């Protein structure tokens, strides 16, 4: 891994201002970031536990990537729009997705559970890469509306190999769409290392499209915030797309179904654990006097309450009404769906069709 990246907060928790990415982190901001990381992490722990006990079918751990996610989330304005993968739990937290909403998806109660108009996040697409194009299209809509907004488009290192991500870059460049591509290079796509997706640093891809790009320390929440903010502002002001590669690491399994011991060494995980985003933020806040015990305790209490609320809501959550599966297939009536719905109801009530 190269060290040639933007870093505002060293692993030791020292703050190093950056000329191109100005940031004056006051205590309020630091506390907000801290809180979001802690709650994200708790969500991760609770959801993993719920999966283990069979309450959820699956969970995608986020441990290690909270820095860039929470930083980027804070860089967004309320009326900016985001597109994510399953992994951006930190962004869900910042944007106000209720974990209980999210977990209904992993419980199998719904395909995508949040109100995307309220949180300003598109539904995540599991088919890797495809939402990069939706981001660009949405940004083209912003252009046509003449609106003062921008789009954040998150995907992983693996996704960069897909044709859709390429076409998204082409369209974004051609139309100078107000979109920021944020790649979380967490070094792995399930069991495939990033070296199999790319021989050159991913950040270099952007220049080929005439898109400015920057590589940042993805475990540095302040760099994530400062750099993404500059990029979003640039997009909002008509400057077109930016490409950010955030170097980070997926410390957990790909999903709860995965077994990473089959393909990677524990030492690698340890190396990255030492670069933990919360640790360094904590160190900095301590040295800056922004982290008092009362605050830590209040966040802890909030996390405990959230955990309890999640468990309470998910454990034994009833299955949805079966007939609901026929809802919203179309926006306007479709006779085939109606016929199938009626047949289903008739069969469930014991009548032959």
């Amino acid at each position, binding site marked *: 891994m190269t060290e040639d990246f933007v870093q505002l907060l060293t692993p030791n928790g020292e703050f190093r201002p950056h000329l191109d990415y100005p940031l004056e982190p006051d205590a309020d901001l630091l506390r907000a970031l801290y809180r979001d990381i802690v709650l994200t992490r708790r969500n991760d722990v609770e959801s993993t536990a719920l999966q283990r006990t069979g309450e959820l079918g699956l969970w995608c751990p986020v441990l290690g990537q909270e820095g860039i996610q929470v930083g980027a989330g804070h860089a967004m304005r309320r009326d900016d729009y985001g597109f994510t993968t399953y992994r951006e739990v930190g962004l869900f937290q910042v944007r106000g997705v209720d974990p209980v909403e999210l977990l209904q998806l992993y419980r199998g109660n719904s395909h995508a559970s949040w109100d995307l108009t309220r949180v300003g996040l598109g539904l995540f697409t599991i088919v890797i890469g495809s939402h990069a194009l939706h981001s660009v*299209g949405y940004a*083209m809509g912003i252009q046509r509306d003449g609106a003062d907004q921008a789009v954040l488009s998150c995907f992983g290192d693996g996704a960069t190999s897909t044709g*859709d991500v390429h076409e998204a870059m082409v369209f974004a460049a051609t139309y100078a769409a107000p979109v920021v591509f944020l790649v979380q290079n967490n070094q792995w796509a399930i069991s495939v290392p990033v070296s199999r997706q790319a021989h050159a640093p991913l950040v270099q891809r952007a220049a080929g499209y005439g898109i400015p790009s920057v590589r940042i320390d993805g475990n540095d929440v302040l760099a994530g915030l400062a750099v993404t903010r500059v990029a979003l502002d640039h997009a909002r002001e008509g400057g077109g797309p930016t490409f950010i590669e955030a170097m980070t690491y997926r410390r957990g399994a790909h999903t709860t179904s995965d077994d990473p011991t089959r393909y990677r060494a524990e030492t690698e995980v340890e190396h990255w654990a030492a670069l933990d985003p919360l640790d360094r933020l904590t160190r900095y806040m301590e040295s800056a006097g922004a982290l008092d015990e009362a605050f830590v305790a209040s966040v802890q209490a909030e996390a405990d309450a959230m955990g309890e609320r999640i468990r309470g809501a998910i454990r034994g959550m009833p299955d949805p009404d079966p007939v609901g599966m026929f809802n919203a297939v179309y926006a306007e009536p479709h006779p085939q769906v109606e016929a199938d719905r009626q047949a289903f109801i008739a069969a469930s009530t014991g009548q032959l069709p």
Partner: protein
Amino acid sequence: MTEMTMVQALNAGLRRAMESDPRVLLMGEDIGPLGGVFRVTDGLQKDFGEQRVVDTPLAESGIVGTAVGLAMRGYRPVVEIQFDGFVYPAFDQIVTMVAKHHYRSGGITPMPIVIRIPYGGGIGAVEHHSESPEAYFAHTPGLRVLTPGDAAEAYVTIQQAIACDDPVIYLEPKRRYWDRVEVDDVSAISGGPWTSRVLRQGIDVTLVGYGPMVRTMLEVAEAATEEGWDCSVIDLRTLSPLDLDPVFDDVRRTGRCVVIHEAPTVLGIGAEVAARVMKECFFHLEAPVERVGGAFIPYPPNRYEKHYLPTADRILDAIEQVMSA
């Protein structure tokens, strides 16, 4: 009332849709200054500007994928795919996102996207320019599939497709692009777009088809009278949903049915129609439903196409077949 080709009718229909709703925009390859390779969008960029008639890079997944984002933002994109054979690079976006987004969102975000595809053979084109992909789309829940049989239909249904809040695969029978008919400047067609239409009522056999086969069926029905066969002709018009009640009604009278399309017979629309007709008209049928469709081969080089396509002769053979059962 004006006489128009289907190309002109589509152009006029797109123009009206754009005039009446500023959120309608067109996207595709070569649809700007060139007006599309078939000139369906001729003059529209000049009149509506580059923001509403968007010449895109050469990337079909990109076109449909950005259309999804635009639709999420409240726009109503009308996408042109240059030829049938070039829709497959966009297949993932179509079946995974366009078709499912409204369902996935629990009904919050509709996908009012129209994907226009010139389709079918009969124009002596090179490979990948004569295919009939309708069954792929009609098998996919979440999509609607429309195909006009003539210019008058095209003028109205393209507007209705654009006005619909669901995604519509709009299949344009390219070999009928230059046929002229009277086009009425009204805003509705009888029964609405999601219905089939009975073009002719006979007593002996029910012919069922759509798109390029509409004119062929009418010609066949004429020719059949010489053999003493009186044919009904039904244009399905909508392939998803299928509107088969008029077909069932007719077959219950005639007792005989022939379904016709260019796509391969195996798992083509005719399979569904036959299965349904045989189920719904089981006790009325005098003969099994016959299907006249493409052989199980890729669309052949065009010097073979007159042998590959459902010609009047092949359809008459099928009529004879059901009549002699």
